[in-house]
């Protein structure tokens, strides 16, 4: 193996470190550090990870991609790609993750759980792995891991049914998005001939190709599900059940940024499709409005923030829809700024919840007078997100408007102005709801210093980035955008008189006016919006339809063996009937059986009495009255079959048949002793049997069909059967003298592995059922 470049080693450490930290937490708890283990290991590992990411950023000059084959036949590899894009996302994730862990050191989530820090660490590692992946399939794996750990974080208070329902809803939607992603990746990989990231290895696909269109749709669905875009944004309010620091991390930067990362990475290929701007930009446009509507209505502090996140990511999606280098730069600039601001706001809400003890949905009237410091920090962050100069949020809106103006689509510019106005309006509302309105909260408790220091860091960042936005652009955003499009991108923002500034001022004044007149506006808006079907309603409708359909399948689960066997046989007959029909019809159908080769069946005449005895034994089983006799007759049939195998020169099979038959007989006899006398003697009528005509008809048809199929299979054996190849090559290729062993553990070992997994699963099912029955008895 060639020497691995240093950045790649660092990247490996960056992904592995949080996972290792998570694995250490549980043993530490077991050693008696129950309270300290999580915060301590969490902070230490995330600090180290952040330091490593910064080192990685400093140590990387140009893109470094390292990839080994994983499944070469499928074109799937495994590796890390360190370049401008992945570094930007990794830095964002690692730094906000660090803030979240520091905050979590003093913010104790309820219920207290050591799992909280472990899941958060695992989540951090997954997101970092996602943004550093050098292969689409690998990216998909990390993508699903983030879904699963987010699920655990949201369901942390799993004793609460509402939390469980929320966690399930989030998982359902994000996993559905994940499935779409997998399909999209497969289509894209098949079209490009490689799953390599970044960029396409082969030539770009034709713009009109169907697989590209499908891939665009599927990947846009996946990204929308991940980034909470309309109409898949309905999970974001539910994810607010997670502890607040987890929200600050997951729902400002990590989970949602992953969807943006995907679109940024695949943009050069996917935007060849004419559908791209409509699908991606359309989702963004709808989200700006849907998110704002949520943020303007919600009472829960965190759900106001969730609505604003949906709306802000809408801006990013519109910029991604434009698919130009400048627009990508603006989108990334927006993303980083928003991440910092939104995380800071979540930290503020957490502090309020801790101080008042009323949670995130209580009223905290007049709090601003009693907690001026926290109020000041929150105001700074909220106004920044609202786009008030000279804070950083002003520049993100400027960047959007500038990109929109150069895209030359008036509708987008108008949407940007409306969206910005709405942003200011709901951020002002947020401040009013959290700090001013409502009944006075119980006297605020003194806050731990860190609960204030962490949001203060974000506030300092927003002032700093507001004064020197070029720092961010020069060191992170422009290199990243240049990597995406492989051209030099030089985005800059500055305060100069022009249409952008005018539009910004317009948006701010409209937003201010909307906030001041909200008392009169709200009822009108509510009337306007009430007849619209909500996305949440659609989710519930789909969910209950699925549940109803699921209940219908219970009709099949009657609990009667004869019913199950009948259904299975009927299904088998239907399949065979289809094959027979296709086979008889002729033509070029792919379902045709090969024509009979005409080779006569080479039967040993000594088998004839055995076969007759087998028929007799089977009939006898039906006629006997005592169950023990039935079992023995069935066993006799089994031994006779072993004899047939022996005569057919299949000693291995015969041997196995004898053993299995004996074991099955014993398994039948063992429980017999426990059955009541009249059941053993079959004195009670057998209930639940199908109508004899149906039963015999079904059994006879299934038996005849199976016989017909076997006959055809033997008759139409190919001239050069694979069996001969196995026989000839067993010893040479595998060293096994026994050809059956060669097939079982060498040639078809993978099948064998699958079979024992099935066997193990089935027995585990039996054991679980038995445990259930014991519990029912006691």
């Amino acid at each position, binding site marked *: 193996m060639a020497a691995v470049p240093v950045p790649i080693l660092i990247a490996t450490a960056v992904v592995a470190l949080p996972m290792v930290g998570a694995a250490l937490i549980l043993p530490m708890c077991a050693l008696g550090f129950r309270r300290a283990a999580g915060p301590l290991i969490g902070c230490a590992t995330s600090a180290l990870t952040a330091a490593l990411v910064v080192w990685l950023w400093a140590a990387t000059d140009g893109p470094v991609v390292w990839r080994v084959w994983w499944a070469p036949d499928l074109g799937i590899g495994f590796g890390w790609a360190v370049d401008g894009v992945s570094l930007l996302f990794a830095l964002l994730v690692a730094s906000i993750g660090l803030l979240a862990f520091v905050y979590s050191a003093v913010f104790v989530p309820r219920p207290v759980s050591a799992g909280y820090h472990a899941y958060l660490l695992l989540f951090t590692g997954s997101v970092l792995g996602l943004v550093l992946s050098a292969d689409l399939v690998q990216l998909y794996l990390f993508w699903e891991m983030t879904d699963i750990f987010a699920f655990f974080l949201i369901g942390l208070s799993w004793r609460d049914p509402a939390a469980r329902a929320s966690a399930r809803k989030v998982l359902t939607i994000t996993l559905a998005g994940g499935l779409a992603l997998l399909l999209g990746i497969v289509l894209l990989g098949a079209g490009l001939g490689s799953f390599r990231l970044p960029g396409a290895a082969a030539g770009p696909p034709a713009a009109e190709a169907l697989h590209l269109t499908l891939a665009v749709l599927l990947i846009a669905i996946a990204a929308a599900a991940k980034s909470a875009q309309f109409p898949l944004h309905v999970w974001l309010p539910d994810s607010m059940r997670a502890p607040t620091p987890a929200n600050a991390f997951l729902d400002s930067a990590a989970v949602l940024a992953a969807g943006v990362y995907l679109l940024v990475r695949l943009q050069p290929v996917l935007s060849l499709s004419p559908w791209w701007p409509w699908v991606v930009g359309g989702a963004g446009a709808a989200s700006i409005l849907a998110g704002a509507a949520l943020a303007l209505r919600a009472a829960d502090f965190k759900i106001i923030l969730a609505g604003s996140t949906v709306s802000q990511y809408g801006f990013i999606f519109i910029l991604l829809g434009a698919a130009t280098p400048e627009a990508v730069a603006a989108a990334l600039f927006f993303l980083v700024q928003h991440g910092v601001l939104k995380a800071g706001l979540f930290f503020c809400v957490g502090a309020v919840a801790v101080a008042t003890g009323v949670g995130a949905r209580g009223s905290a009237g007049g709090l601003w007078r009693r907690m001026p410091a926290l109020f000041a920090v929150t105001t700074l962050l909220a106004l920044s997100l609202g786009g008030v100069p000279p804070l950083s949020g002003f520049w993100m809106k400027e960047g959007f408007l500038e990109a929109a103006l150069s895209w030359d689509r008036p509708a987008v510019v108008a949407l940007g102005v409306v969206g910005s106005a709405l942003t200011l309006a709901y951020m002002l509302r947020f401040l009013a709801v959290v700090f001013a309105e409502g009944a006075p909260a119980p006297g605020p408790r003194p806050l731990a210093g860190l609960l204030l220091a962490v949001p203060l860091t974000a506030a300092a960042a927003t002032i700093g980035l507001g004064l020197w936005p070029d720092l961010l652009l020069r060191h992170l955003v422009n290199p990243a955008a240049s990597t995406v499009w492989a051209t030099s991108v030089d985005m800059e923002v500055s305060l100069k008189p022009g249409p952008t500034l005018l539009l910004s001022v317009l948006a701010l004044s409209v937003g201010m006016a909307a906030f001041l007149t909200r008392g009169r506006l709200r009822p009108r808006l509510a009337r306007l919006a009430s007849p619209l079907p909500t996305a949440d309603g659609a989710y519930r409708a789909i969910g209950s339809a699925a549940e109803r359909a699921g209940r219908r399948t219970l009709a099949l689960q009657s609990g009667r063996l004869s019913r199950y066997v009948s259904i299975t046989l009927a299904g088998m007959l239907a399949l065979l009937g289809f094959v027979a029909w296709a086979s008889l019809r002729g033509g070029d159908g792919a379902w045709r059986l090969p024509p009979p080769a005409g080779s006569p069946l080479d039967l040993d005449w000594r088998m004839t009495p055995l076969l007759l005895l087998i028929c007799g034994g089977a009939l006898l089983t039906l006629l006997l009255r005592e169950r023990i006799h039935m079992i023995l007759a069935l066993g006799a049939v089994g031994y006779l079959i072993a004899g047939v195998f022996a005569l057919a020169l299949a*000693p*291995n099979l015969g*041997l*196995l048949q004898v*053993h*299995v038959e*004996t*074991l099955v007989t*014993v*398994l039948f*006899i*063992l*429980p017999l002793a*426990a*059955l009541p006398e009249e059941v053993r003697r079959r004195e009670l009528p057998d209930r639940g049997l199908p109508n004899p005509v149906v039963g015999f008809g079904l059994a006879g048809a299934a038996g005849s069909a199976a016989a017909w199929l076997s006959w055809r299979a033997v008759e139409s054996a190919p001239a050069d059967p694979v069996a001969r190849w196995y026989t000839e090559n067993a010893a040479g290729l*595998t*060293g*096994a*003298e*026994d050809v*059956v*062993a*060669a097939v*079982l*553990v*060498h040639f078809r*070992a*993978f099948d*064998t*592995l699958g079979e*024992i*997994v099935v*066997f*193990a699963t*089935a*027995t*585990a099912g*039996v*054991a679980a*059922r*038995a*445990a259930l*029955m*014991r519990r029912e*008895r006691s």
Partner: protein
Amino acid sequence: VTPLIRVVSLAVLPIALMISFSYLVTAEERPGDGFTAGIITALALALEYLSFGYAQTRRRIRRIRFDYVLFGGLGVALAATVLPLLSGDPLLGMQRLVVAIPVLGELKLSRSMVFDVGIYLVVVGGCMTVIDGLEEAIG
């Protein structure tokens, strides 16, 4: 159940275990493999259950958790599946080691033998888990 059966089943158990072992070792040369060996062992244990009753047999072998055997066997088989990757072979690829044993001849150790041991454990564990389950379910 006569005393004769009890004596026989006592004698059968070690013999069955030996047969199982020989099947495992010679799986590649002669008929018989891990699956058959597992069935034989499970059969011998089931015979114990039949002749001595569940409670008494269980007292003698109570330390064995057959569900652990089942999933341990699955683990062994999976390990045999992925271990060849470490030496650069494909999944389930071949690695073998021939050990000369004085007097007895030579013993071929291979990846497939580990795989067979996994199958053996899965079969024994699975069959006995089912029997234990039957006992739990109906007493």
